């Protein structure tokens, strides 16, 4: 019984962290799906989202507002607006001028952007770890009180539900809306879509804005869940989310979700049953295995040779 509860607890831990990987991975996968480049500055957009949310929360607290839903909504909206404009600006400044060149050039531009944003936040906000208030506290417990108890906190539930809502909305948006249809068209064939009268520049901007907005959601959620943020934390999270995107099949939105969850659970099970030291070994080992045996990822479609 105790073993089962322990397993359940590690599963919950893994699914929580996995959902947030998925939220960040969307940004990588959508951009790759549409223009075939890796946006390495995406982790920084996520980090900026977390900082913006913290500034908004602190500001509201200074105004004496203590009503939790209002604080969360204002923080979320602020973070999404700032991150989205950042995502849009990054694309406009760093990627559009080099689009269509050799594929290494936008990649290098993206890495440069990532370093720039990291150091900008270093300068603007200081390099220290800043504590993030835990706004949602408490949770449910299972199991008898004298032995191991499985607990699921309200924060973890919030993370699951928010991720599910975001993912469902995004899927609906991509499959039903006009912009979504245009997105799919652009991802199939950019040149052809533009010949058919789709404003491809606008669609590409929209992709960056959507990815950044979801990253901002993840920034707020993870800031609250973990409890501290620093200018470098976007880099590691970005790397993990990128791994999740590749694992699930880069370019595929359900793939990003699946990849994120698998990665999260693999990490927490490794820490739980093996040792925390092997966490990254296992997650990146998994990536290598997938790439060896299924190079397109779990749900990715094989690339059709365009002649």
């Amino acid at each position, binding site marked *: 019984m105790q073993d089962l509860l322990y397993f359940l607890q590690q599963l919950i831990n893994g699914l929580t962290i996995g959902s947030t990987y998925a939220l960040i991975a969307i940004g990588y996968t959508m951009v790759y799906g549409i223009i075939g480049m890796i946006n390495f500055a995406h982790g920084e957009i996520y980090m900026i989202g977390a900082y913006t949310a913290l500034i908004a929360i602190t500001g509201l607290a200074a105004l004496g507002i203590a009503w939790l839903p209002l604080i969360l909504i204002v923080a979320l909206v602020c973070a999404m607006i700032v991150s989205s404009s950042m995502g849009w600006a990054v694309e406009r400044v760093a990627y559009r001028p080099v689009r269509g060149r050799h594929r290494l050039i936008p990649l290098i531009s993206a890495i440069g952007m990532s370093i720039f944003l990291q150091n900008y936040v270093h300068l603007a906000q200081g*390099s220290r770890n800043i504590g993030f208030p835990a706004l949602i506290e408490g949770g449910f417990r299972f199991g008898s009180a004298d032995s191991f108890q499985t607990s699921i906190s309200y924060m973890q539930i919030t993370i699951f539900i928010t991720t599910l809502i975001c993912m469902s909305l995004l899927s609906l948006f991509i499959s039903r809306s006009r912009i979504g249809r245009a997105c799919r068209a652009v991802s199939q064939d950019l040149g052809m879509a533009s010949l058919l009268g789709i404003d491809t520049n606008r669609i590409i901007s929209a992709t960056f804005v959507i990815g950044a907005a979801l990253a901002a959601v993840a920034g707020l959620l993870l800031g609250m869940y973990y409890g501290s943020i620093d200018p470098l934390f976007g880099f590691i999270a970005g790397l993990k989310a990128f791994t999740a995107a590749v694992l699930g099949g880069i370019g595929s939105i359900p793939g990003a979700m699946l990849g994120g969850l698998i990665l999260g659970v693999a990490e*927490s099970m490794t820490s739980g049953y093996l040792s925390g030291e092997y966490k990254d070994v296992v997650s990146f080992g998994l990536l290598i295995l997938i790439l060896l045996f299924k190079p397109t990822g779990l749900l990715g479609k094989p690339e059709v040779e365009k002649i």
Partner: protein
Amino acid sequence: MTTSVKKLVTAVSTSIALMGAGHAAAEIKIGIAGPMTGPVAQYGDMQFSGARMAIERINADGGVNGEMLEAVEVDDVCDPKQAVTVANRLVNDGVRFVVGHLCSSSTQPASDIYEDEGILMVTPASTSPDITERGYELVFRTIGLDSMQGPVAGEYLASLNPERVAIIHDKQQYGEGIATAVRDTLKNAGVEIAMFEGITAGDKDFSSLITKLKQADVDYVYYGGYHPELGLILRQAEQADLDTVFMGPEGVGNKDINTIAGDASEGLLVTLPPSFDEKEENKSLVQAFEAKGEDPSGPFVLTSYTAVQLIAEGIEQADSTDPFEVAAALRSGSFDTPIGTVEYDEKGDMKSFEFVVYEWHSDGSKTPVN
């Protein structure tokens, strides 16, 4: 007209150049190398404020053998790669005495460069035993060793008669070194070590680790590392209702842990150098810090002050600015400093250095427990 202007310009620039040269010759450059930015910058602040104060006060007293001290400050971000870069920069700047570095993992590679280039280094904070194990002639410290701090923590934990203890570390030279020392002490005392495990520095999610600690049902957790990770572990452990007491080395004992962990930092046990700022004989020095609006209570402020003072006294006693002669003077002498009487052994370690166990409070204050 033009010629006279030219002459004037030449005359002025020559005299400026000469002034510069004369100025430089009368100064002894002291490199101060530590993290100004990065995750452990607050320790760097302590180091810089202590060293600057020492340089100011020594210069106000007429300098060393009539020569003024000049600080050359560099930022190593507590990153071994950056430490090598800034060490080379100090070499290029003609610095012959260095106070630094702070993190053991930075001090180690930087000290290789200093030893090769004949530069004397005094680290005010690095506690890894390896640093002085290599038979270097020019490496000193004004702080104790993990091999002294670990046993103090281990013996204290053992005296509480725990059934099971878990030991976590951040896989870095400092954290793992001290965690190993604690483990060995506890083992010798017959305490069961339920877990000895590393985490990745910079990680944010410790939910799996905390679940594991809960499962292992331990009485105490010792953490070898720095405050950013321990702060998160404390906070996430409180949220997961993990009922245990945490203990850490001086790398976790600063007020930033309170901003991360909040109330969860109450009751944390920390081994720290004794509060030198509370000593009677340091009163005027403490007042000098307070007059500048600085806080002398950090663990590395007065050790850095002492590092500068030792270099100055070493130069005076050797009557030379040759680092090798200064090193010989430091090894043979006995010095009265704000951290007590300092005497060095052959390796460059202090012959005695005390660590004290404190209980940390959620308002950032601390009380000694033994």
